[in-house]
């Protein structure tokens, strides 16, 4: 199994969810995150005092998939997340040893 993690622009969440559903992914986890990459942050002004806000809001999407789907699913997410502008984010996958469905105790790919 593989864990695919995507840190992307928050407003792309709906497109990514739809793309994953179309692909046949049954579950995912979404967390709010903040960070920066090459685009850095932005500047805000309060009564003339300028603040550089380094960390911009992102969402972090995590999906567990079987090994053979991983490469294709990364492409699906990248396609759905892309706006072409700086700050679109990153997607990566890592190997996973074990997964257990808490309710039934099923293990491995059956737990997905």
């Amino acid at each position: 199994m593989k864990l695919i993690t995507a840190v992307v622009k928050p407003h792309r969440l709906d497109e990514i969810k739809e793309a994953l559903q179309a692909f046949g992914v049954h579950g995912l986890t979404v967390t709010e995150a903040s960070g920066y990459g090459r685009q850095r942050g932005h500047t805000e002004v309060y009564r003339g005092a300028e603040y550089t806000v380094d960390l911009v809001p992102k969402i972090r999407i995590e999906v567990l998939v079987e090994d053979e789907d991983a490469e294709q699913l990364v492409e699906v997410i990248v396609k759905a997340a892309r706006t072409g502008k700086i700050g679109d984010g990153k997607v990566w996958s890592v190997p996973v040893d074990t997964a257990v469905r808490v309710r039934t105790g099923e293990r491995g790919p059956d737990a997905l």
Partner: protein
Amino acid sequence: MPPGISTLAADAPELSAANTGFMLICSALVMLMTPGLAFFYGGMVRVKSTLNMLMMSFISLGIVTILWVLYGFSMAFGTDIGSVVGWSADYVGLSGIGVNELWDPTTIPVFVFAVFQLMFAIITPALISGALADRVKFTAWALFIALWVTVVYFPVAHWVWGSGGWLFEMGVIDFAGGTAVHINAGAAALGVILVIGKRIGFKKDPMRPHSLPLVMLGAALLWFGWFGFNAGSWLGNDDGVGAVMFVNTQVATGAAVLAWLIYEKIRHGAFTTLGAASGAVAGLVAITPAGGSVSPLGAIAVGAIAGLVCAMAVGLKYRFGYDDSLDVVGVHLVGGVIGSLLVGFFATGGVQSDAKGLFYGGGVDQLTKQAVGVVAVLAYSLVVSGLLALVIHKTMGMRVDEDDEISGIDQVEHAETAYDFSGAGGGASSRKAVPAPAETAVAAAESKKVDA
């Protein structure tokens, strides 16, 4: 405070139900300004000191009310002693005042005048609190309020508005409190912050406002309540002066909003919400002394000048290194000085009195009087407030511990947290960006500590 109506010598004033009702409503409007101010300031601080900022204003509603009844009204508006303070035994405890007794020479009961003026005494020390954000012990602040109104506000109110007060008798025009309220509070703020020093991280750490909608709400409540503050200060509506004041309050505030926004668009590139709210307050402050003596066109000038100059003045703290946290000096002191001095230029001589300003052929006579009023109140409040703060700072200490200031004054002083961000029920739609996982663990540890 101006005389309400002119009556023939033979006619004793009678209680006016209309004026009395109007003034009671105005008193309630002015009361609302203090919680409004609390929201205005509360939105401007960081999340960790929101409640302390709200409470610094709110506590004034308690402390000053009691002191006012006990001896404050007597000190401010009792029989004059040496032109500097008042005292009337009848006013102590408000216990010797007849139910039908009228405030000379108006048509409203003394009780109504006393409660209206009480609301002014409440908001003035609350104004100071904005300069002291994030770092002052609540007990020290409560003690400061009690001492400050006693030694500074009650006497200064007597100077400016009390019959026999030296600025009042000199002919200084202060319709609703440009000197007694705003210069007074602004100078006091400067005196105190010079004693207690800066917030930890001033000029280094980002200290952006945590809730601009709260700031906007506060500004709106202030603007609304200010109609009572200003128009009510004529103490009745038997002539048109209160109405002119009402109109000018709106006109100057609108002009100041525009002036502040235009300045910061040119200077900093954006029309900010905080700029609009600040401009409104700057305009309200400046028209407070002046609105009863200028024309509506004059009010536009007063508001625009105040909006522009205050927008420039709020940057001075970074240049000179004093931590006027929420710009009490930059808005209230500067705005109050501008409004008070502009009376000397824009007074038409045709509204509250026949005193004419420089632009209306009155020469520099009124301007000189205004300058004396400004300097006297500014200097007295600055020095005495600084001394009061010094005494408290050297004895019980004005500031909370460094660790407590960094982790947030709300928890140490109030044992509460302004907002629950635990997010039960989940969802990815919160406005607040949740920190990255490593930081989430730290936040969770902190919240456990609070619950314990």
